[in-house]
């Protein structure tokens, strides 16, 4: 009798997120993958700018991924990631129906959103996916949204249709000029500003070097520049301090104080060096 009632108690549980299963995975561009999972609690809560921590299997590292899209009704969450090391390689092998060992969130503070006027959202690499919900949210708030995306070549860009639907204008920049006039995002933003375009705010998501260059490009124009920092993390809840960054001379934890900071106040040299801390180990792990 008692045992049976104990079983009942399991089903009574009001909050039961259940296992996080893969709904779809597709390659958006070489090395860039889109992963969509079922995670109803996170889907119901997530805001632009927030991230999740993911572990593909029981041996994998915990890695932070910025969220690129979600569907609150279907309870799904999507992330774009670049395959660079062991952990992301594992994510790139997931198939529909697979269960992720960890998919926890939403983590970090939501991005500050308001009606500022003209806002440029700049994305590179995985960030092209991450700026889509940001552009959408800014548009909903009545901003004029310019999406600015960069890549080495046209075939590395993706989600152009989504970005067009969420923006007033899309600006491209490619290293080989296969699309767009500028060689990278920083040059593109500078061209925009030089051409007299009034910009109230820039929000940049992408690799550290790209965000650094963007921040340097807007600095002389004093355009408020928000960057989404991506240092190494473990727990993502403020417990370990691996993700510490220096902003305006103060140590901050990117996972809980960020991930979004004023790009003109970030100590980029420190961030770039801290991101390289385990490059040697990554090689060892890859050779395993």
């Amino acid at each position, binding site marked *: 009798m008692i045992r049976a009632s104990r079983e009942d*108690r399991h089903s009574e549980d009001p909050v039961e997120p259940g296992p996080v299963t893969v709904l779809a995975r597709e390659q958006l561009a070489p090395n860039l993958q889109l992963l969509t999972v079922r995670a109803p609690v996170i889907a119901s809560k997530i805001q632009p700018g927030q991230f999740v921590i993911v572990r593909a299997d029981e041996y994998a590292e915990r890695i932070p991924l910025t969220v690129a899209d979600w569907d609150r009704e279907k309870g799904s969450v999507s992330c774009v990631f670049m395959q660079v090391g062991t952990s992301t390689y594992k994510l790139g092998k997931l198939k529909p129906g697979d269960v992720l060992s960890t998919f926890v969130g939403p983590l970090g503070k939501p991005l500050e959103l308001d009606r500022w006027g003209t806002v440029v959202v700049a994305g590179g690499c995985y960030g092209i996916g991450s700026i889509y919900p940001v552009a959408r949210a800014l548009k909903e708030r009545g901003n004029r949204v310019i999406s600015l995306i960069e890549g080495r070549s046209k075939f590395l860009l993706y989600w152009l249709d989504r970005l067009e639907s969420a923006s007033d204008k899309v600006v491209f920049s490619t290293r080989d000029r296969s699309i767009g006039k500028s060689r990278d995002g920083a040059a593109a933003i500078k061209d925009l500003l030089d051409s007299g375009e009034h910009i109230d705010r820039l929000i940049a998501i992408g690799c550290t070097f790209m965000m650094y260059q963007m921040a340097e490009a807007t600095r002389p124009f004093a355009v408020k520049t928000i960057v989404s920092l991506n240092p190494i993390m473990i727990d993502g809840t403020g417990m370990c301090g691996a993700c510490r960054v220096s902003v305006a001379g103060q140590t901050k934890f990117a996972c809980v104080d960020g991930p979004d900071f004023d790009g003109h106040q970030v100590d980029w040299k420190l961030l770039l060096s801290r991101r390289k801390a385990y490059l040697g180990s990554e090689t060892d792990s890859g050779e395993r």
Partner: protein
Amino acid sequence: MSKKPKQIIPKKTPMPEQPPAERIKNYDEVPYGYTPEQAIAEAKRCLECGRPLCVDGCPVNINIPAFLKLVAEGDFRGATNIIKETNALPAVSGRVCPQEEQCEGKCALSKRFESVAIGRLERFAADWEAFQGTPPIPALPPPTGKKVAVVGSGPAGITVAADLVRKGHHVSIFEALHEPGGVLVYGIPEFRLPKAIVRREVEYVCRLGVKLVKDFVVGAAETVDELLDEYDAVFLGTGAGLPWFLNIPGENLNGVYSANEYLTRANLMKAYRFPEYDTPIARGKHVATVGGGNVAMDSARTALRLGAEESTIVYRRSREEMPARAEEIHHAEQEGIRFELLTTPVAFHGDSSNWVKEIECIRNQLGEPDASGRRRPVPIKDSNFRIPVDVVVLAIGQSPNPLIPKTTPDLKTQKDGVVIIDNETGKTSKKGVFAGGDVATGGATVILAMGQGKKAAKAIDEYLTTGQW
């Protein structure tokens, strides 16, 4: 009532352990534990004194004389049952309690001789039970229909969950990480507390009917207020997860870790088994750990096992003031950890790739006692010197994670983030919300967290039954 006075055996029965030279090359547990014969011999040392103070010394008031008597008689099942009446995690506390300050410190023998090895016997009983196979589940009362959310699966949370499920309440534990156990899994290393033991204890609580929800961050996925819409009470056992830094130059150099990060990589993420596990850790040749508590000892000893040629503790006071358990300091010394006492770091210096290469320190002398009652370190002018290092671990303390207080406006905390509770009940400033363990103390011991968990569980049961706040 004349009782033949017991013969006094002055010293504890030694516990066999791995030799230091061998154990620093592996991650296996250091002591092997007592054999049944050794346990019986040790339990017989108990004087069965008229007014046993050991029980008062125990934060969860285990009936120590009764369990010792049963061990002495060879009734190990009986002994285990007595311990488990008040302690949900005996295999854990038998290993990590600072017994010398608690039960064993109050033992009548301890005034002139070595106390009874109560901790080792507690561990023996718990391990013996585990060895017999899956322990039976006690009969449980019918469900009350009340639901409790426990936030955090560390020692406080597990204790609360175990006590409340046995009262017939429905209990869900929410854990932010992917493994339950809190500090027992991310902090305390395998060689001091094997993770299989934590897993076994958590499984037992789950078999009692407790629901465990992993990878769920309360304060992010759901706020405490949202939990209160679904649950009749919430217990916060979220620990002290926010690591402190020294705020000195060079602290963000690569190779400088908080102890939380260093130990989490090594323990939770199993970086000591890299590249079998994917998470890397810097395997320094010269590792310095700053601090003098258990976490510092754990970090310094972990460094040795990760291949350090030299592992040094840098502590600002003297050996006397070190807050670590006696056994941890002893084990560290046996393993060849170097102690730089009366030493405070003032800066870290890096190489051209921004990796730490030296700690600059200053020597101290001891001054007047401070608020903690320990003598305060006073820097000696111009005594600066440098220690060459390639990894530094900062084990200087931590405070509660601000995530829940920040998202729970009416939850009162002290300036340092410690949640304010009523010490007898664990009640916070917010109706229906209780707290205990490091989140309410700022950082203490596993057993103190369990003691607070017990009090809170009792108060939660009363609250659920009477509805009175």
